[in-house]
């Protein structure tokens, strides 16, 4: 006869409510771990998916994911000339927040190096990759945009031609893929008055030097849009992505480019490490501490619950002692209940998490290894938590049954 099971059957409601409470607590512990995994996944998603072998960024910077990195767009041509390089692409990335249909739309603008890169590598759930040099975008579903929807950014309208899922930046904002020139236009979009003033200032500066005075054609060119004036205001990109030829040695190519003093080169792994050791690291440690605290709290809560359950049946335990039950019978009663509570709580946490986690604002990734680790932790805290109840049960005297 299993006393633990019979006791639970008799107090099923209380056991169920207690288990639900423990399950919710464990779901939070599970969620914390999942948020941490999601943070890493989101942070490294783009680096992993974009398929570059080397990242060339502004000299002495850590690249666009860590800080501002500005490079001339024509660096791409210099990089292509390096032996071992198969291709080079411009990379533009910046976050914007614009009003759209009465709400604030926050997105990470990602520039694709048109025409080489049309976003064919972006996993689409609907629509198609970019097919035009301008005014098209692929949007992550989290942005809430529909296929075919038009979006005004600056002075231009952009049409959503493709939808992707789970493509978010390290801050959790959805990605929107444009061509590099469009993303630059969005980034440097200025109000009309600011543009007019900037052009007037440009003309004034030109007229104040000999070159401007002797070349009226140059003055006319100075009034053109900035992005059409590479000599005056070359468009800037965040990084240049390098794909190596087959068999090329990445270290050799990186060493060659590193000799240019205006740039810094990182391998994809280095870029990934920089991401994780920078912005993700503090969040990771914070989540880790929260997780440890929650596990401690769970242990204390389960211990108190088991202690209370033990107190509730202290007369029964005294009676068992009186009729000669061995300690293992009594320990088994409490320990099995602790294990059942932990097991059901863990199962409930997992089951509830399947419904709850997808609704969290940040991605929650529950990996089998993390589940197994948490299961072991739950086993450990169940054992630990049962000690208090077991101690109480073992110290109660058999004659308590007479005095009760």
């Amino acid at each position, binding site marked *: *006869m299993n*006393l633990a099971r*019979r*006791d639970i*059957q*008799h*107090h099923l409601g209380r056991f169920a409510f207690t288990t639900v409470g423990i399950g919710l607590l464990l779901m939070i512990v599970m969620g914390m771990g999942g948020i941490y995994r999601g943070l890493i996944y989101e942070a490294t998603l783009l680096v992993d998916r974009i398929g570059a072998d080397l990242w060339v960024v502004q000299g002495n910077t850590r690249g666009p994911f860590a800080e501002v990195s500005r490079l001339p767009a024509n660096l791409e041509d210099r990089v292509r000339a390096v032996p071992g390089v198969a291709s080079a692409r411009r990379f533009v990335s910046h976050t914007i927040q614009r009003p759209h249909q009465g709400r604030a739309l926050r997105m990470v603008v990602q520039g694709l190096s048109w025409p080489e890169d049309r976003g064919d590598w972006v996993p689409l759930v609907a629509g198609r990759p970019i097919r035009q040099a301008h005014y098209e975008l692929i949007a992550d579903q989290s942005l809430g945009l529909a296929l075919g929807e038009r979006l005004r950014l600056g002075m231009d309208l952009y049409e959503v031609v493709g939808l992707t899922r789970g493509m978010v930046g390290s801050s959790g904002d959805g990605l929107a893929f444009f061509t590099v020139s469009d993303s630059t236009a969005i980034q440097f979009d200025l109000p009309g008055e600011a543009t007019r003033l900037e052009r007037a200032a440009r003309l004034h500066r030109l007229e104040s030097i000999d070159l401007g005075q002797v070349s009226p054609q140059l003055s006319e060119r100075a009034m053109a849009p900035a992005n059409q004036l590479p000599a005056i205001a070359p468009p800037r990109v965040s990084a240049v992505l390098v794909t190596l030829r087959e068999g090329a040695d990445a270290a050799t190519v990186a060493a060659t480019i590193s000799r240019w003093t205006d740039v810094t080169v990182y391998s994809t792994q280095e870029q990934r490490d920089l991401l994780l050791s920078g912005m993700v690291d503090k969040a990771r440690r914070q989540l880790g501490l929260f997780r440890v605290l929650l596990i401690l709290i769970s242990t204390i809560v389960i211990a108190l619950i088991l202690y209370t359950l033990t107190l509730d*049946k202290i*007369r*029964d335990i005294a*009676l*068992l*002692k*009186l*009729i*000669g*039950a*061995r300690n293992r*019978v009594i320990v088994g009663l409490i320990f099995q209940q602790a294990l059942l509570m932990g097991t059901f709580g863990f199962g409930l946490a997992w089951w509830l998490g399947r419904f709850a986690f997808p609704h969290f604002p940040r991605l929650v990734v529950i990996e089998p290894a993390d589940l197994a680790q948490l299961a072991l932790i739950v086993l450990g805290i169940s054992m630990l938590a049962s000690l208090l109840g077991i101690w109480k049960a073992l110290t109660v*005297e*058999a*004659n308590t*049954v*007479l005095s009760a």
Partner: protein
Amino acid sequence: MNPSPDTHPGVEVTALTKIYGSGNTEVVAVKDVSLRVARGEMVALLGPSGAGKSTLLTAMALINPPTSGQIRIGGEPVMDGPRALVDLRAFRRQHLGFVFQKANLIPFLTARENVQVALEVNDVPSRAARQRAMELLEYLGVAQRADHLPDALSGGEQQRVAVARALANHPSLILADEPTAALDRQRGRQVMELFAKVAHEQHAAVVVVTHDTRAIDLFDRIVEMEDGHLKPTGDHFR
């Protein structure tokens, strides 16, 4: 038929003294009490409140060690003063049965399981324990209530189940403390009749602490206590 205590020893208490507290708070609950109860004999332990009956009973039940004196059960020495001479819990499991004022049934076990658990803690296999429990419940007339939880049983039925549990492991000594206090006259007598039946048919020594003299005719012997002593005239053979 009352067998001789010398040939069929149930419980034998020699010069037992129990003192609670010390110094100014010292209370002598039982003083120099000697008592023998043979197997097959049912003895009533009478006396006013505070006479030391329950203390003597709990000492014999091996849950309240005496300050001095010896206890032998089934001829085996088990206590010498406060010192245990055997594994008390194992000894209780194998040789003793208990019935209290309240039935003290485990609330989450059915009537049958309450009996069965006493057998299983004594290493009786589950199937055999179940069968024996049912036999006992039938013997005591509550087999039809075997699958009911204690809450669903009347006071008399609960006491019968408690008696069945006390009998489960064929104890040589059954100790009962005010077993009829919570029952009406008729049910109280029925329980006492059960004890007499058990003592005589199961050949167990039965010691019953009671204030209830309405069923006193059922006992083989009456022992009276007062102020921690056995009264000189208190050991009567019926």
